[in-house]
C-alpha cells in the first residue's frame, strides 16, 4: 500500500495543478487559433477551423507591422541593457566583496534602496528631458540598467565570495595588473552566475511594462508589452488576435525557460534569500 501513495497524491496534485496552472495557457492558445466570431464566445470549445497562420499574419500586419518593430525594440533594449548590467555589476560586486573601504557601506545602502524603493517617476522624466534622453532607446536602456543593478550586484557579490583570494594573489605575483586580474582571471570564472543573471534579467526587462509606459512613449518606440496594452483596447471585438498576440509575447520567456530552467531557479532563490 505504501508505495502507491506517492502516485495517488501525485495524480491528484497534477489534476489540480493542471486545472489551475495549465488551463489559462490552454485557453490563450485556443482563442489564438479561432475565428473572430468563435473567439468572441470566450468558451473552451475546440475551433471549428484552425486559423493559426491567418491570425498570426494578421497580428503581425496590424498597424503597419507594429509588432515587428516592437520585437526589434524589445530585443535591442533587453540585449544592450543586460550586457551593460553584467559588466558593471560584476565590477562592483568584485570590488565590494574583495576590498574593505568606506565606500562599501555607501554602496550597501544604495543597493538596499534599489531593491526596495520604487523609482520616483515624474522627476525621472523631468531629468531625462533635461539631458535629452526622454523617449529614446538610450534613455530606456540606461534606466533598465539603473533599476536592475542592485539585484545583479547582489548575485555577483555572493558568487564572488566563493572564489578563493589565492587566485587574485597568484595573478598579482605573476605580474598581472589589477585590470587584468579582473578581466582575465575573475570574469571567466563568473560564468555560472553570469548565465543566471542573463536569464533572470532578460526575462524581467523583456516583460517590463511600467517603465516603457512612462519613459518610452511614442509610436516608433513601442515595446512588445506595450503592443499588448495597445491591442487590448483596439481588439476588444477581435479576441482571436488579442490572444494570438499574448501567445507570441509568452513564447520568448517560454523558450528561455525551457533552456535555462535550472539557472532561473538558482538565480531567483539565491538572489531572493540574500536580499
Amino acid at each position: 500500500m505504501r508505495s502507491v501513495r506517492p502516485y495517488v497524491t501525485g495524480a491528484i496534485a497534477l489534476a489540480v495543478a493542471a486545472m489551475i496552472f495549465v488551463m489559462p495557457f490552454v485557453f490563450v492558445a485556443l482563442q489564438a487559433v479561432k475565428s473572430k466570431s468563435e473567439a468572441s464566445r470566450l468558451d473552451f470549445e475546440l475551433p471549428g477551423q484552425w486559423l493559426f497562420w491567418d491570425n498570426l499574419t494578421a497580428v503581425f500586419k496590424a498597424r503597419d507591422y507594429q509588432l515587428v518593430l516592437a520585437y526589434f525594440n524589445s530585443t535591442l533594449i533587453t540585449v544592450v541593457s543586460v550586457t551593460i548590467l553584467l559588466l558593471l555589476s560584476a565590477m562592483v560586486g568584485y570590488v565590494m566583496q574583495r576590498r574593505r573601504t568606506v565606500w562599501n557601506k555607501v554602496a550597501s545602502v544604495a543597493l538596499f534602496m534599489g531593491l526596495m524603493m520604487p523609482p520616483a517617476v515624474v522627476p525621472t522624466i523631468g531629468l531625462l528631458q533635461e539631458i535629452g534622453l526622454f523617449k529614446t532607446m538610450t534613455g530606456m536602456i540606461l534606466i533598465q540598467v539603473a533599476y536592475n543593478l542592485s539585484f545583479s550586484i547582489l548575485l555577483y557579490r555572493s558568487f564572488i565570495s566563493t572564489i578563493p583570494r589565492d587566485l587574485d594573489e597568484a595573478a598579482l605575483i605573476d605580474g598581472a595588473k589589477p585590470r587584468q586580474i579582473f578581466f582575465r582571471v575573475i570574469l571567466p570564472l563568473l560564468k555560472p552566475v553570469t548565465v543566471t543573471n542573463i536569464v533572470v534579467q532578460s526575462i524581467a526587462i523583456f516583460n517590463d511594462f511600467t517603465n516603457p509606459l512612462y519613459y518610452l512613449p511614442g509610436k516608433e518606440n513601442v515595446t512588445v508589452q506595450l503592443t499588448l496594452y495597445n491591442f487590448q483596447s483596439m481588439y476588444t471585438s477581435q479576441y482571436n488576435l488579442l490572444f494570438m498576440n499574448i501567445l507570441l509575447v509568452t513564447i520568448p520567456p517560454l523558450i528561455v525557460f525551457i533552456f535555462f530552467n535550472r539557472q532561473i531557479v538558482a538565480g531567483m532563490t539565491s538572489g531572493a534569500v540574500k536580499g
Partner: protein
Amino acid sequence: MTETRPRSRKSPYPLWFFIPAAIIYGVLFLVPTVSSLWFSLTRWDLSTAEFIGFENFQQFFSEPFLVKGLVNTLIYAVATSGLKTVCGLLLAVLLTGNIFARGFLRTLVFFPVLVSTIGIGITFTVMMHPTRGIINVTLEALGIPGPGWLTNPALALFSVALVDVWKGVGLATLIFIAGLAAISPDYYEAARIDGATRLQQFFRITLPLVRPATLVVVTLSLIGGLRSFDLIWAMTRGGPGFSSDVIASVIYKQYQAGFYGLSTAGNVILFALIAVIILPITLWFNRREVEE
C-alpha cells in the same frame, strides 16, 4: 590606515570599478528619488516648479479617492503577501515530499512567474467576464451564481489580488523549497521515533525552522504588493470607480492628468509607506541573523 604612510602598493581591487555603475545609478535613480522630496512640495509643470509647501499632501489626504488608493494599497499588499506565504509554504511542503511527477509540478507552478504580467492580466480579465467568462460559466454549471469578479466594486481589488497570487506563488514556493532543503532530516527522524504526527512535525519542526525563508517571502511579496501597478492597470485601470486604485495607479493617473507635483507626492507617500513597513522587518531579521 594613517594618512602619512605612503602607499607601498596599490590595491589590486581598483575603486574606479564602482564609478560607471555609480554614475548611472546615481543620476537615474538617486537624483530623482532625492529631488522628488522637493518636487512633491511644488506645483510643477516639468519646467517651472512653484513652492507650495504641503499643499499636495493636504490635497492627497483630503480627496477620498486618493485616500482610498492608500488603503487599497495596504489591503492589496497584505492580502497578496499573506496568501503567497501560506500557499507557497503548503505547495513547497507538498513538492518536497515523496510525490509522483515532482519536478514537473514544480515547473508548472513556477512558470507563470516568468510570463508577461500584462498578458496574464488580459487573459484573466477575459476569463473573469461576468457572463461569458469561463470561470462563471463553470460555476454556473455547478449551480453556483458567479459574482462580477471585476465589475463589482467590493470585489475587484480582491480578484486582481487573486490573480497576483496565481502569478507569484511560484517564486514563494521556490524560496520555501530552498528553505526546506536546509532543514536536517534528523529532526524529522527523531520526531518520528518520539511518535509525533505529521501535523505536529509541521508545526513544531518545519514552521520554526523555515522562518528565514518565510521572512524573505513576506518581505519580497510585501514590497511587490505595495509597488504593484501593471496587473491592476491591465485588469481594472483602478476601477470600477476608484475601487481598485492603488498608490501606483494614482501616481500614473495624476501624471497623465498633468498634476506632476501631486503625482510626485504620491511617490513620496509610497516611499514612506515602504520604509515604515519594510525597514522594521528587515532590521529585525538582520539582528536575528547576527545573533545566530
